[in-house]
């Protein structure tokens, strides 16, 4: 059982006035003026503050995590200045980028007027430890489930602290503060309901400095401080680099891999007549490329990330989609993806194309020019997944055909009828959370199938009644219902009287051409068999409702079986007379026509 550190991540953002310093990276925002002729002097470039770059990077980290792992990977933002402020909570509804952006607005940029000496990142770090001790919804569920077993939940988490560090000693003092905080909070949360001691915490410092500032060599790989705490320090320039750094961390923290989809044809923005090929880089779980990475068969496939991520990317070539590939693909895994640069035009083109419901096959270029379709991109219900298609030899090769096996030589299966049966038993999602469905929807589906199959001969030659549905309708489809109303009972009775009439007129039954496997070709025997089948059908449903009993009563009245003999004509006529009175009362006089023998 794994209790991943990545379940809970706290971003501690330094919100002190020092963070309002410029990142020293100029951004030209006044571009595209060429077409407006000469004489326009572009406006001076803008620069972001260190705070802006940090906030952007942290939000980008969350965007990727929420896109790829919407359920069990949680992130909380903590701003630290003269005190610590949690921007969101572990609650599921607070775990989305929009919520974070809204909270960042309310927080605002670091205040110029705050006294720097009152501010400390320690506030944020100790608060981060406190929130890591808080149980998430998932952890509470798991703790409940585990109470039955001997094992106990392990509470682990990660703190990513974005700040500027002064020296190794500064790092040292911060990690001591965190260690101290863990010990304290563990004592406090030992017996609390919604809290739990931290079993392990990973502390990641991202030291950010303005672009061009001399390097301070405080970066340090991951090392263990105590069984409870490990620390690592990353150093990065501000500006774009900090986002690259933080996304790189996300790749490590969640074991992500990158795929570059190459050769996507796209209409040019300026010149809509022509099209050019673009590449789009996607992030997803590493498992997507397990086959290629395990086999070491990646020669010529791996490139350095084109979006500048500190990692490699596996290239897959876009295959122009065929219209509406609806057949089932041989898909052995599906994982969520998200574009590395979600705003770029090529990314938007690709995602919109997929969200519109089309699928794209991806091909691994292989040596020797052979084509290997290894993946498929497609969306389901508003999210895009990369599907792994099986590309190795299958043990299912060359099986004997189903027609060679048991039951394979029968040619009169009720294929069409069963097709209708399947459509009648199609499932639909019960999505309304507000209306309880009791019993569970799936149980109701099973109950439905159970009722529908109480009598269901699978071959045409096995049945009389299902070959003469035109005479019996709508009885067979009504009788399987769990309730019948009065009209439906009457419909069933009509059907029974109809066949009674047929028998009394000595009409032949529509026997299938193939002939019955069961004995008897004489008309009398055929009728006997038909009655037996009909009786079985009505009897298996008799306990569905009291109304069903009425149908059976009608059947028995018309067709009393005494020691295997069919009822006498007299008895039957009496029953029919009774019905006629019934019908007369109900002014359904047309029905009388069906039984001329009583005229």
């Amino acid at each position, binding site marked *: *059982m*794994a209790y991943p550190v990545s379940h809970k991540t706290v971003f501690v953002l330094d919100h002190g006035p020092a963070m309002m310093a410029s990142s020293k990276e100029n*951004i030209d*925002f006044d571009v*595209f003026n060429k077409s*407006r002729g000469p004489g326009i002097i572009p*406006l001076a470039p803008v620069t*972001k*503050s260190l*705070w802006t770059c940090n*906030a*952007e990077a942290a939000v980008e980290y969350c965007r990727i995590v929420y*896109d790829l792992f919407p359920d069990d990977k949680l992130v909380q933002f903590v701003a630290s200045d003269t005190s610590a402020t949690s921007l969101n909570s572990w609650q599921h509804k607070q775990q989305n*980028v929009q919520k974070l*952006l809204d909270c960042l607005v309310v927080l*605002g940029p670091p205040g110029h007027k705050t006294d720097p000496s009152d501010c400390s990142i320690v506030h944020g770090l100790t608060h981060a430890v406190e929130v890591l001790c808080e149980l998430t919804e*998932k952890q509470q569920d*798991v703790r409940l489930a585990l109470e039955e077993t001997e094992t106990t*939940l392990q509470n682990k988490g990660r703190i990513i602290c974005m700040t500027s560090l002064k020296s190794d000693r500064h790092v040292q003092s911060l990690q001591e503060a965190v260690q101290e905080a863990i010990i304290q909070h563990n004592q406090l949360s030992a017996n609390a309901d919604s809290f739990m001691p931290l079993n392990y915490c990973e502390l990641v410092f991202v030291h950010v400095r303005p672009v061009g500032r001399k390097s301070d060599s405080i970066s340090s790989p991951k090392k263990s401080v105590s069984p409870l705490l490990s620390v690592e320090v990353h150093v990065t320039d501000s500006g*774009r680099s900090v986002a690259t750094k933080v996304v790189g961390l996300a790749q490590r923290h969640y074991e992500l891999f990158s795929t570059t989809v190459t050769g996507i044809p796209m209409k040019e923005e300026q010149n809509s007549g022509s099209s050019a090929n673009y590449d789009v880089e996607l992030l997803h779980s590493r498992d997507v490329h*397990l086959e290629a990475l395990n*086999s070491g068969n990646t020669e010529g496939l791996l490139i350095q990330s084109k979006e500048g991520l500190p990692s490699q990317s596996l290239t897959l070539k876009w295959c122009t989609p065929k219209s509406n590939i609806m*057949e*089932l693909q041989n898909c*052995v895994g599906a994982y*969520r993806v998200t574009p590395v*640069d*979600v*705003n770029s*035009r090529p990314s938007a083109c690709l995602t919109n194309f997929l*969200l519109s419901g089309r699928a794209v096959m991806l091909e691994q270029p292989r040596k020797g020019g052979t084509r290997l379709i290894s993946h498929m991109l*497609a969306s*389901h219900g508003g999210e*895009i997944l990369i*599907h792994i298609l*099986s590309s*190795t030899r299958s043990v*299912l090769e*060359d099986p*004997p*055909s*189903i027609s060679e*096996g*048991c*039951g394979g030589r*029968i040619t009169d*299966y009720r*294929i069409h009828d*069963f*097709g209708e049966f399947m459509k009648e038993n199609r*499932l*639909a999602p019960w999505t309304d959370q507000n209306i309880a469905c009791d019993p569970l*929807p799936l149980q109701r*589906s099973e109950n*439905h*199938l159970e009722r529908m199959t*109480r009598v*269901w001969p*699978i*071959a045409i030659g096995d049945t009389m009644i299902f070959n003469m549905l035109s005479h019996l309708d709508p009885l067979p489809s009504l009788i399987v219902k769990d309730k019948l109303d009065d009209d439906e009972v009457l419909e069933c009775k009509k059907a029974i009287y109809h066949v009674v009439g047929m028998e009394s007129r000595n009409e032949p039954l529509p026997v299938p051409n193939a002939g019955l496997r069961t004995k008897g070709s004489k008309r009398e025997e055929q009728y006997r068999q038909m009655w037996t089948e009909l009786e079985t059908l009505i009897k298996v449903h008799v306990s569905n409702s009291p109304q069903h009993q009425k149908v059976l009563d009608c059947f028995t009245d018309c067709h009393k079986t005494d020691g295997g003999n069919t009822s006498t004509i007299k008895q039957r006529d009496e029953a029919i007379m009774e019905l006629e009175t019934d019908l007369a009362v109900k002014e359904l006089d047309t029905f009388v026509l069906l039984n001329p023998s009583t005229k």
Partner: protein
Amino acid sequence: MPTVILLDVSLSMSRPVKMENSAGSEDYNRRNLAIHGINTFLDALSVKNKLEYVSLVIFSSLYEQLVPFTRDYILIKSTLTKLTDFDKTSLAIGLSGAASTITDEWGYSTPSQIILITDGSTGVGQGSLKQILETHKQMGIGDKDASFQFPCTIHVLCLASPQDPTIQASVSMYKKIIDIYGHGGEVCIPESTLSLDSTQKMFCQFFEEHCSPFHGVLECGHLECNIHIFPKPQVYSKSHDFEDVELEVCHNIKIVGFLDTSDVASPPFISRHLVFPLPPQTANTDAGASDEAIGDTGKIPSFTVLLHGSLKVENMVAICQVGSEWYGMLYSWADPHKKKSNLMLSIFEPGVKSLPWLGKFTHLAPHQIFTASPYGEDDNKTPFPVKITEKRSYSLNHVGWIKPAGLQADIQKVLRHARKLPEKMPHFYKELNRVRKAALSYGFTELLDALSAMLDRECRLLPGSAHPDAALQLSHAANALRTEMARDITQTITPMSTKYSSIINEAR
């Protein structure tokens, strides 16, 4: 599953076996016994599970794949008659050889097994069992490189007498090896003194335990049919976050309802299996449905055949429950050459939420219970896919300015509308407020001033023919961006109401 018979052909395998009551009969050596055992095993396969692929690999200090994966067991049998002796036992070579024959053929996801047939002598020096264990100890337990990166069990069938004094030590070493490779397996030794009989018995028992076919019952309400599922479904054993899951496929595969193929939309599966119908009485008793027997049963109606036919004609799938909170689907599958089709069972990842676009499996209801049919009056709608509740960033019009291009594109949008004032007034203010809000989120207040300067310039550059309202709105917006109000998220910059704009509104 694909099976490698990994046969030890080192010199020690040619040691003769002392037969207790072998008065006058021929002498056997261990290799003869091995061949006898393998033949027993192959005979059982050909009767009961003839679709399994088997390969023959021999090893000593080198390895060689004598027969590639095949269903032609006679070929393996005849190859076995032509074996010769080689040098010493190097188990490391044998196992890595067997492993590469598997991954070359089947990749890294097909479950497979290696049946190692040896005599209990664990080798000496380089490549010996002892040495593998020692190297592993140095690398540390849980070292990923040591274990197989593909699901492959290792079974050791040891041709040694249980009375052999060294055998217990060997057995425990074999068990350690199986643990190191990490996918389980068993060590078998004959129950009694080494002989043809005890060898045969060991192989038979092994077959029954590990290679016998999977028989079950396919149910759809009251309709049912005995079935043979090939390949045998594996035990699902995985360590997930917060839970360990160990599940076995149940012998009753229960259909719970049906879906259109387009609605299930190529779902990922963890394994695929052919489903063959079996005649009613023979299931679970005698699986030996030989060809002749099938000839007789061909005329017995089988629900499986009916289901296959209808699924194929209607292009639908049957959703079925294969275990506790574990589901799969049945559908008609044609082999790549499209000549023959069969009923296929795809087993999904366990759990009720393993296919999010179908919602929870336990919440799939018969469509009759809905007040309005989810498939529409004329069967022209579908309730699938189930939409996700939280949109992903790529469908949210997410603002990201990490790259200058993102910022430039958003500014450009504002400018484009600015140049078409007053017609594009609503768009202009909408984009302006969108950029303003994002700037406030990221604490990027410098941008507000820059934007203000840019709008001032646009105002100055307006051609003489421009609508008077354009200049008014541009300078209004530019001024608004410079006020404290622009930094208050609860406020929105709204169009200035001018006599021109009211004229325009009236004209509309």
